[in-house]
């Protein structure tokens, strides 16, 4: 798994590549919560390069979602591959957070939210 970060307007995009599983999910959790604690609580996780996500990966996403909300922000997901999208849908994660078909829509939604909330 590789993780990198970029900023689009006022949204922090976290790009993950590879397989997110029990062996590396803690790394993603630390990365997400670290970014949020550093003041970037409007997060989009770009999943386009993620080919597998186990429940440990879902747990990392949940940790990031809760942390972002604690800081008044939001964590949203973008561009999940079909297998990962199925994992997110079956487990109900798509009921508790937003999953967008592509990065542009996710960032646009994040920007709109920040506009509305005045942040």
């Amino acid at each position, binding site marked *: 798994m590789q993780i990198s970060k970029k900023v689009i307007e006022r949204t922090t995009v976290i790009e993950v590549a590879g397989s997110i599983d029990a062996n590396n999910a803690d790394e993603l959790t630390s990365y997400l919560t670290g970014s949020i604690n550093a003041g970037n609580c409007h997060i989009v996780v770009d999943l386009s390069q993620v080919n597998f996500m186990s*429940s440990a990966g879902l747990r990392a996403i*949940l940790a990031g979602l809760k942390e972002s909300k604690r800081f008044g922000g939001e964590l949203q997901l973008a561009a999940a591959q079909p297998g990962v999208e199925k994992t997110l849908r*079956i487990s*109900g*994660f798509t009921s*508790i957070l937003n999953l967008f078909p592509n990065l542009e829509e996710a960032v646009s939604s994040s920007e709109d939210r920040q506009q509305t909330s005045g942040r």
Partner: protein
Amino acid sequence: MASPFNTRVRANHTDRSPAERDLEIGRQIQASFLPKELPELPGWELAYRFSAAREVAGDFYDAFPLAGGRRLGIVVADVCDKGVGAALFMALFRSLLHAFAEQHYSLGWLDVLEGEAQPLGTSPLDIRRKLLSPGRTSLKKAIDLTNDYIAVHHGDSNMFATVFFGVVDPDSGSLAYINAGHEPPLVIGQSGVRQKLMPTGTALGLLPGLEFEIDQVELEPGDILLAFTDGVLDARDPSGNPFGDQRLVDLFAGNNTSAEGILEAIYQAILRHMAGESQFDDITLLAVRRDIREIDDTEY
């Protein structure tokens, strides 16, 4: 099978470090959180397979009488992540679900009075089903209370579990269930998969106050309800290819005459697929089959 964990090879205890001994003790205690044997129910056959990927597991299954023995509760669940953390939460999820379900057992008329029963139609059959539906309160309370307990008291751990919890009426074959974010169980009839029991809510423990709906399906004579964890579909061959849906579905033809038979066919097919590759996720399967009574009566 003697023990749910009987496939694991255990070294001589004198050779092991304190940490290994602790893990072995944990393994033994965890086994006590699984039923020693499944309930016996006239006209029904229950079977299971359980294989932990490590010494301790995050998967669990359960089967127990509800509503004074007039209903059968069945659970198949998968706690997120792996290792000792998942195992500790397995013990918690299993105990909460089982204890809350037993505590909140009530009669069907009470379900109706309390508005807990799933809205059904107004046909005479629907009304009868509604009045004769004990176990629904147990099901709903067990799921709601477990979700909130985990989300409120253990929210910082970010632990959750996908859970299928079904309540079978042995007389009518009716199955009321909540699928909390779990891999859809299958109802297998004479000619293959008749229905997939899709999620009726999210995984348990994500956030407090989430909504879980009860759905219902009728198990006809000869039908098998097959519930399993994602370790079945994700089992990898040496090239990394998952076992997948299609291999599972292909096994049903010719193997659907007994719960034990279908599970053995699936389990052996998974082992063949893995071809010696080490198991990376727990594998759990539970099958419940309604007998074809008329045929059984004439044959024996």
